[in-house]
């Protein structure tokens, strides 16, 4: 990857980021530079180290090597990082006993959002995600998709500088998935937020990502703009992101067919 062109616009920067568990390398010498206001599609097979990477960048686990900054703060400064990020793990972190509105007010309170602004923002987002009519029902009665939507609202409620989304469209019907994709695009384009998007649904990445990084066995095996990656697949013709994924995660010898784009 190339050196950052504009350090002031850096949202996420990782250099040699490494995580080992009892001798097992989960993430190995990862370098990332992700500018503000972009969507970064983070792909990789199951067990490649994507979730571990996200947990390091969100301060939930400590790297065993390398450095990283998120929204200008080193990941070792947890308090500074968490103030500027939103995070949606694979299972939306919600309390079943609360209603959706109570859950969102709770998070808004912890985020120190002024009450008026919080109420306006909650109403606006509930409306956008078609949850306004269900907001006063307990989350325990919600479908998987409704929980997912509530989790996404919770992650972006405070308009964070960097949003980490792990499989955000999982379990959503096509209409809701469309809303999520539009929201992600809007976060980057209109709110100048950076979205770190981990998913296995490749069309979502293809549509939204400015840059795609593919992780395999803890190593970043390729990175670049989707169109660039698709053109560089050595199939003799224009490929798809699925071709890229299969090619670079099949083994390191395959990844040489594409080479690592500097992004």
């Amino acid at each position, binding site marked *: 990857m190339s050196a950052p062109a504009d350090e002031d616009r850096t949202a996420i920067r990782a250099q040699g980021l490494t995580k080992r568990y009892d001798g097992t390398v989960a993430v190995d010498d990862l370098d990332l530079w992700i500018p503000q206001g972009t969507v970064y599609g983070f792909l990789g097979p199951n067990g490649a180290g994507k979730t571990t990477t996200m947990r390091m960048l969100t301060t939930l686990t400590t790297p065993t090597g390398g450095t990283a900054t998120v929204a200008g703060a080193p990941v070792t400064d947890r308090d500074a990082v968490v103030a500027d990020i939103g995070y949606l793990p694979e299972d939306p972190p*919600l309390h079943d006993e609360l209603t959706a509105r109570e859950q969102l007010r709770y998070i808004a309170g912890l985020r120190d959002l002024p009450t008026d602004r919080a109420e306006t923002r909650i109403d606006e987002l509930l409306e956008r995600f078609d949850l306004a009519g269900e907001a006063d029902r307990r989350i325990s009665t919600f479908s998987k998709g409704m929980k997912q939507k509530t989790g996404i609202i919770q992650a972006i409620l405070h308009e964070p500088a960097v949003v980490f989304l792990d499989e955000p469209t999982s379990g959503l019907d096509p209409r809701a998935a469309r809303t999520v994709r539009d929201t992600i695009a809007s976060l980057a384009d209109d709110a100048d937020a950076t979205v770190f998007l981990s998913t296995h649904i490749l069309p979502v990445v293809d549509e939204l990502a400015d840059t795609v990084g593919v992780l395999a066995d803890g190593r970043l095996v390729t990175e670049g703009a989707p169109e660039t990656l698709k053109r560089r697949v050595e199939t003799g013709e224009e490929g798809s992101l699925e071709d890229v994924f299969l090619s670079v995660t099949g083994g390191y010898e395959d990844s040489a067919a594409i080479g690592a784009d500097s992004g």
Partner: protein
Amino acid sequence: MTRFPTPRHAALIAVTELRRGWRQFRGKGRVQQGVLGVAVAFGAVAVVAVAFGGYAAGSAVAADEVAAPLEVAALVPAAMFTGAVLFTTYLTAIQLGNVDQRDALLTTVPHADVVGGVVLAAFVRIGGLFVVPLVVGAAAFAVGVGSAVAFVLVAGSLLMVLVAAFVVGFALGLGATHLFGRSQVLVRHRLAIGMLGFIAYLWVLTSNRFDEVVAPLVTATRASPVAWFADLALVTVVPGADPVQAAVAAVGGVAVVVVGLRAAVWVAGVHWYADPVQAGPTAASSASPTLLARVLGQPAAWVAKKSWVRARRSPLKLVYVVYPLFVLFQPVQEAIRVGTVTATLPAVVAVYGAWATGAAFGLNPLGDEGAVLPITVTTGVRGRAVVTGLLAAGLVPGATVTTVATAALAIASPLEGLAVVGVTAGAAALCVGAAGVATGVGVEFPRYEAATVARSRSVVVPSTWAFLTYSVVLLVLAAPATAMQVPVVTEAVAAATGLSPAAVQIGGVAGAVVVIVPVAWYGIRSAERTFDAYTVD
């Protein structure tokens, strides 16, 4: 890094946790709500007792009837501090340290705020139970001693002791959990260790040895500056109270709370962000249950093997089988103390062993399959094979252990030769009968939902109705055989019928077998039919 909780965030987290807890409680069944009602009633009685005690103590101090009031009074903060630290440490290790949706909270606010919220919520929920008797007792003491200031000092000093102990206990509990989780050996065997700890706890409780275990700790605490809280509480009403020690207690109490909270935040920062210790690869079980398969057929053997593997890797789901063990503590302890096995102990062991044999794998055959049930029923396996496998899962270990233990105890007891044979055969027969009854009851009262055994651990356990119905049916069926082994009953029946005592004992066992066999057979057939006809609606 934030070193102390932000009060507003901590309060918001605490309020939300309390609201969630209240809603969870309201969603529970009436039986559990009724249990709380009974507990509250007992608590009210305790508050009245504390009020009388407080008033009597205050009156005695006012009348100068207590020879060494400070020495006596020092026991109160010492016992309270010791008990609260132990209790909170234990609760934190098993429950309070596991925060729901922890990752979401830790990516929203500094972890110090989470510590503050969790400690505050827990104190209101648990410490709050002790605040009412504490305040009432202090008020009654103040009335008895005739000093309003005494109320403020007694209530304030005891409340400070309680808060300090709670915060210290939280930090210790979290630290213990962290250290425990750092060892691969302990992580691998944590549930077995937990079970042993639980049994030890039951033993201490049922053998009246609690005082012996706790008394040295209270004595040590009483010899520490914690005792100075008695000076603080009584400084205005007992002439011998040391004002300097009282002042040190007041300042020291606040300092312990602050340092304890800081320590809790530090330990939480270490524990909550620590990488989990890998327990290492699980040793693969053998590819096929060959020996059992030759006897029972392959499908039944796999059902039994699967049950054993699941139980070994998740022993928490069998914890309810251990609960009735406490009935054995007293007779076993007594036998060890006097060096003689009583004539009734073999029968008691036989009944418990049979109960456990049936309860372990038979009480929830449908629900225990969990999400796999639809797959199991569509594999084409017959109900007979499934039920046979479940029976074998319980009987192979259960009947063996029960029969051997009963025989050994019977030989060591004053029972005569024929009676030894009778009670041993009865134990084996009872195990078989119990396993059959359990499967029949289990399919009638299935439970599919997981129950929270500890805060972070949910397992599917049999329903309360299955548990109760099975226990009652088995005890009723086993009653004749058991009763006939009790010497007084044996002799009375022998005298009334003209039979020999041994014949009465054997007859009791034979009678129980005659009664239990058809019931067990019906239970087994019913379970087989239910399984064969199972549909998801």
